[in-house]
């Protein structure tokens, strides 16, 4: 037996003895409160046992009535308008008639509102059902354009003042020796290109402009003219040679007679031809022509100067179609005015191709401008 066993046994015995007798398993005492107790009466007891009134919810406030208007509007006449108005007139009451019971409804205590702690119920969602699409719908509001331009732009050029004379704006040059006087830009009024009668005027609600794309302009006929001219001119020398060989030609061909008139430089481009055509038609005013003159096509020849101005004395009538003598004269005069007026400052023609446009034949065909 080792001594250690003795020592361990003794220690455990001592610990067990301490737990059993030393109070190691004794319960912990609870905290203790002390209060005074006294005898109370029955009234005090009843008062203590009566439940306290539940705090009443405020009654629903009545809707505010509008302030009385002193200027009472006259009553709308009704079917009972002739009946005497009802009024509380004590003298009108019958003697001996018992007084009516006073109306105490206004004095009675309103019913207490019931307090409910439950969460309010959500209103039931309307049942889903399929409906027909409306016949009309509001047009979507177009997206507003930005009010501020992302990039600054130059203000538009002011309109030229309407005047009979077309003149450019001129500002004095401070560096010049003799500064010119300032001059305002003027231009004649723009002209109409179609006739709109009073009966055809669009109503105010109708759109002023159409979003339709413009019709493709007709192909300029001048394109087809060049080969035709070439073909014709090609045929002429053949014919002339044949006639000369056969002895039937009395005069030589014009080309042979005037070889020095051969134009130099490339032919006018289509754009250059169109520019000339547009320039002339801007001054071809058919508004003052008679119906007969508007049914007349005239071919007018003109010789041009190198500065692009027409030689006024060279304007001549070459041919006409569709009108009498008087109508032809009026149509020719209108064409002559167009050539001269718009050419008074010179047409924009390439000078290096002068020989190409030194002589021009213009056909004025008013078919699209006729009174129909």
């Amino acid at each position, binding site marked *: 037996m080792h001594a250690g066993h003795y020592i361990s046994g003794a220690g455990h015995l001592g610990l067990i003895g301490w737990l059993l007798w030393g109070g190691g398993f004794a319960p912990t005492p609870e905290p203790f409160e002390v209060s005074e107790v006294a005898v109370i009466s029955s009234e005090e007891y009843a008062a203590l046992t009566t439940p306290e009134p539940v705090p009443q919810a405020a009654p629903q406030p009545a809707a505010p009535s509008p302030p009385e208007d002193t200027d009472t509007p006259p009553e709308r006449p009704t079917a009972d308008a002739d009946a005497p108005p009802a009024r509380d007139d004590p003298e009108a009451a019958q003697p001996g008639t018992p007084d009516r019971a006073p109306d105490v409804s206004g004095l009675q205590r309103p019913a207490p509102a019931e307090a409910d702690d439950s969460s309010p119920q959500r209103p039931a969602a309307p049942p889903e059902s399929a409906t027909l699409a409306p016949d009309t719908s509001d047009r979507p509001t177009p997206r507003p354009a930005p009010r501020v331009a992302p990039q600054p732009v130059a203000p538009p050029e002011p309109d030229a003042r309407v005047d009979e004379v077309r003149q450019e704006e001129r500002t004095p040059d401070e560096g010049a020796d003799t500064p010119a006087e300032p001059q305002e830009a003027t231009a004649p009024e723009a002209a109409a290109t179609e006739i709109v*009668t009073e*009966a055809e005027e669009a109503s105010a609600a109708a759109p002023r402009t159409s979003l339709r794309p413009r019709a493709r302009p007709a192909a300029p006929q001048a394109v087809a003219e060049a080969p035709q001219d070439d073909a014709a001119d090609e045929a002429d020398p053949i014919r002339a*040679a044949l006639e*000369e060989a056969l002895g039937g030609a009395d005069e030589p061909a014009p080309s042979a007679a005037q070889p020095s008139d051969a134009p130099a430089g490339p032919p006018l481009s289509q754009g250059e031809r169109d520019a000339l055509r547009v320039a002339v038609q801007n001054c071809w005013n058919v508004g003052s022509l008679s119906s007969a003159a508007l049914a007349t096509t005239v071919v007018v020849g003109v010789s041009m100067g190198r500065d692009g101005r027409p030689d006024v004395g060279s304007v001549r009538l070459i041919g006409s179609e569709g009108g009498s003598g008087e109508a032809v004269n009026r149509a020719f005069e209108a064409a002559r005015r167009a050539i001269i007026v718009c050419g008074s400052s010179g047409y924009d023609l390439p000078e290096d191709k002068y020989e190409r446009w030194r002589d021009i034949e213009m056909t004025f065909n008013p078919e699209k401008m006729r009174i129909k």
Partner: protein
Amino acid sequence: MMRMILTLLAVLGLLAAPVAAQDGPLRIEITEGVIEPMPVAVPDFVVGDGAAREYASRIARVVADDLSGTGLFREIPREAFISPITSFSSPVQFADWKAINAQALVSGAVEIGQDGRLVVKFRLYDVFAGQELGEGLRFASAPEGWRRMAHKVADAVYTRITGEGPYFDSRVAFVAETGPKNARRKRLAVMDYDGANVRYLTGGDDIVLAPRFSPDGEKILFTSYSSGFPRIYLMDVASLDLRALEEQPGSMSFAPRFGPDGRTVVYSMTRGGTTDIYTLDIDSGTTRRLTRSPSIDTAPSFSPDGTRIVFESDRSGSQQLYIMSLDGGSPERISFGQGRYGTPVWSPRGDLIAFTKQSKGRFHIGVMRLDGSEERLLTASFLDEGPTWSPNGRVIMFTRESQGADGQASLYSVDITGRNLKRMRTETGASDPSWSPLLR
């Protein structure tokens, strides 16, 4: 051998072709122009005699108004003139007139002749061409006729530039209206085409309707209720002599119009419950019935050659236009559009029919070809009716009545293009215009 020579010549010709191909002038075709009034300058006429001074500016003013009133010309204000014309015979400074864009220039002079008559002469220039248009003209009349001479100058200018016939020297017969609608006083009246020189022909005691000038402009047919029923009367404009043309018991006659011969009258007569069209020879008094139908046939108008008439009838169930020959034959309907057509009038040119159309609650004045094609409505308003042609067939005058209890009838004119709609100047309300032929 010959064939070889020809072939050789042809080859030589082809070699020369490039040179010949460049020999022709540049050719372009203009198919679109502009429609705008032509700028015209009408400076005061030169005074050749001190006594004629008062007429110099007056005549120029009337000429300018006549031209501007057509809508085909635009008068250049006199403030823009650079240099005045001081001599009728001096050369014109075209550069000065070009500078203000005057495309036409009217230069004139007035003087009092030895016989006390007023003499007016003028020249017309194409400014940009730098040359005179036609020959100068000279008119002479009593000074009181200065307005007519001004109209004649304007007529000459208008005709030379446009090619249309003249119409300024003409008059208009109409019904002058005064008072409220429910008690309106109506009088026959005659005025110059521009509203000047109004002259009343009747007193206003009786209701008068639809005056119509004779081809010579000296007589007027009209309908009067002086007897209680509509009757046709013939009045001499100069003497105001009055004559009832058609008096048949139990009948009503109305809507008369002269034939081109000035002796035949075509009109409507209601008798026995039917309204048909008749002709009347003024001299002999003989009548001839042209239509026989249970419908209402009225508002007849002669063609310029006097061989046909156009009239309105409801024989198809609605009011439409018909043309028939005076030699007989059944009428041919020419209007087929929606609405009702009435008061047709044959153009002096003979190519168009002017009419009144009622459609969708509005009234229109329109024109159509003789076969009913190319119908064009020129106006639209609450009430437009009763067209009459200018002597040259270019302008139509008609009655326009405004809406409401205070509505008043006025005379309007419109170009057959539908442009230049304008109200005529009248002292009172006016209706039922009839344009006279050119004065002689």
